[in-house]
């Protein structure tokens, strides 16, 4: 087993659609240690979910990994057959989805669906599975587990259902939990509860969490490291502190400016990022963010910026950093 739980190296992934090849991931590298919480941030279509899905083998049928490696816990996930993959899914990696309203099968009881997850991996009897299901419901903070097990998804609230989804995900005590926008579809008060629950569970069970979100506020509270994605690339990666206090990419700065800050006395205006995300069918040859970037320079339109390190655990792809260095170099 390698040093890392997750080690994605230069992954390229494309979707083949009737209109052409959509390059959804373009040289994405991600590393996660055991028990680490990584936040993956970006807007819709930036490739954050695709990265996570390729790790658990749930990429849509027309998606194909075109290069790089996807390692998980010592397995080359990208080379595994569907059957081998099935042995890992739900056992070593689990996932919870954005919309708890539609992610549970409406025609089976909660109990049935949790017990199924318990029994797929391992050889528990029906009774043991039921006991385990009760245990799991208690773990995710649901009262009266006996009663809940017999209920159908439509009889539970959204927050409750997301807790059930978490219970299903935890059934086999996975090493990694992928949370794909777990709070987006929930009310704000419930969002906080679910995040708190995930934080507690991480501390109790010691699993790694890959938290995918478009909301920087969500990752701030619980992530060790943060990867900012744009147009199928990781444009900046660093510790939570680096990203929040020392951002090195214009897109990250833009995201930070668009978070409301209520603590500040003076109400600073929210600054939206203008424009539309790029069309990955026709990716631009320069920096993908260039058309929307306020500090865009001539070179940004022409050449792709390479990754520049700022210490051990912080890198970014932006020509501004090169410019700073270049001009900084001239001055000194």
């Amino acid at each position, binding site marked *: 087993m390698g040093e890392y739980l997750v080690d994605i190296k230069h992954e390229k992934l494309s979707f083949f659609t009737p209109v052409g090849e959509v390059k959804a991931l373009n040289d994405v590298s991600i590393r996660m240690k055991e028990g680490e919480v990584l936040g993956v941030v970006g807007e819709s279509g930036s490739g954050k979910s695709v990265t996570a899905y390729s790790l*658990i083998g*749930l990429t849509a049928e027309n998606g194909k990994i075109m290069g790089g490696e996807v390692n998980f816990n010592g397995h080359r996930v990208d080379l595994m057959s*569907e059957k081998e993959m*099935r*042995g*890992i*899914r*739900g*056992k070593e990696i*689990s*996932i919870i*989805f954005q*919309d708890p309203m*539609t*992610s*549970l*099968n*409406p*025609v*089976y009881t909660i109990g049935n669906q949790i017990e*199924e*997850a318990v029994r*797929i*991996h391992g050889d528990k009897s029906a009774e043991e599975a039921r006991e385990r299901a009760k245990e799991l419901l208690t773990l995710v903070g649901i009262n009266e587990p006996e009663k809940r097990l017999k209920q*159908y998804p*439509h009889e539970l609230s959204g927050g409750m259902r997301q807790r059930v*989804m978490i219970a*299903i995900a935890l*059934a086999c005590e996975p090493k990694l939990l992928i949370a794909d926008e777990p709070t987006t579809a929930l009310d704000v008060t419930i969002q906080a509860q679910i995040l708190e629950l995930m934080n507690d569970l991480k501390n109790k069970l010691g699993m790694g969490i890959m938290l995918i979100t478009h909301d920087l506020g969500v990752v701030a509270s619980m992530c060790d490291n943060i990867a900012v994605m744009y147009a199928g690339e990781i444009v900046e990666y660093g510790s939570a502190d680096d990203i929040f206090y020392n951002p090195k990419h214009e897109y990250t700065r833009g995201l930070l400016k668009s978070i409301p800050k209520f603590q500040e006395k003076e109400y600073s205006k929210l600054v939206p990022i203008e424009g539309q995300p790029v069309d990955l069918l026709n990716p631009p040859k320069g920096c993908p963010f260039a058309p929307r970037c306020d500090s865009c320079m001539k070179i940004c339109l022409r050449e792709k910026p390479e990754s520049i390190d700022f210490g051990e655990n912080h890198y970014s792809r932006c020509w501004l950093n090169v410019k700073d260095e270049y001009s900084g170099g001239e001055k000194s």
Partner: protein
Amino acid sequence: MLKYIVKRILMGVLTAFIVATLTFFIMNLVPGGPFLSEKAVTPQAQAAMEAKYGLDKPLFMQYLTYMGDLLHGNMGLSIKKRGFTVTDIIGNKFPVSARLGGLAVLVAVMIGVPLGSVAAYRRGKTLDNIIIVFSTAGIAIPSFLTSTLMMYFLSVKLKLLPSLGLDSPQSYIMPVIALSLYPTCYIARLMRSSMLDVIGQDYMRTARAKGVGTFKAIFKHALRNAILPVVTYLGPLLAALMTGSFIIEKIFTIPGLGHEFVSAIPSRDYPLIMGTTIFLACFIIMMNVIVDIAYAFIDPRIKLK
């Protein structure tokens, strides 16, 4: 639940009553009568016959008499089949049609549902294309063509199967195929499109993420969700096939209810027409209630009220 069923049955009785009333008046207001075609009958004899069946009374009186008898479970005597009560005729003919039709529905479901599911699961692949081609062709052949062509090749040319009646198990083969071809193909198409819809749902992704295998994902998680449109179609289908298809019964000379009913119309066998119509109406209504109940059992989100 019980309240709902009772309510639906009461509604059904009302519907059947309206159907009976409508049929009674339409049937009697149409020019012609049961004894007109028999030319040899003298006017006196005809009057006597009409008096015997109460046809000489004013129409509204006839209606009241009929409805009164109906309430006592008496559907009267057949005019053309002397000596038989309508209840007897239905009692004799319905089981024949019901057995044949029930068998055809069973075949249609047993073949159509798996075919459609497999096609959806293998969408875009060769197997899917084969199933699509056959099921689309299958709903383009009227059953009278299937039966005549089968009769021509299997009975007349190759002499493999008996062409008439329902006396042996083999004699069921052709009528059942003829009856079930269309519904089989229709169910396969219905199942395929609803299965495709379900496969794209989020909970199917959840099942995959749990590590559920393909077979179990399709037959446990998807099937129960995807089968609802098929169940909806089963109500009218059961009603139509089990009450007897006139065409099939005519072609294969099967003594079923469908044939009996259609022959009764031109000969104006009023009691038989009325009795069969009311029976058919009740049967259709009953099938629809059963389908609704089955629906609620399959999908817990549906509340019967």
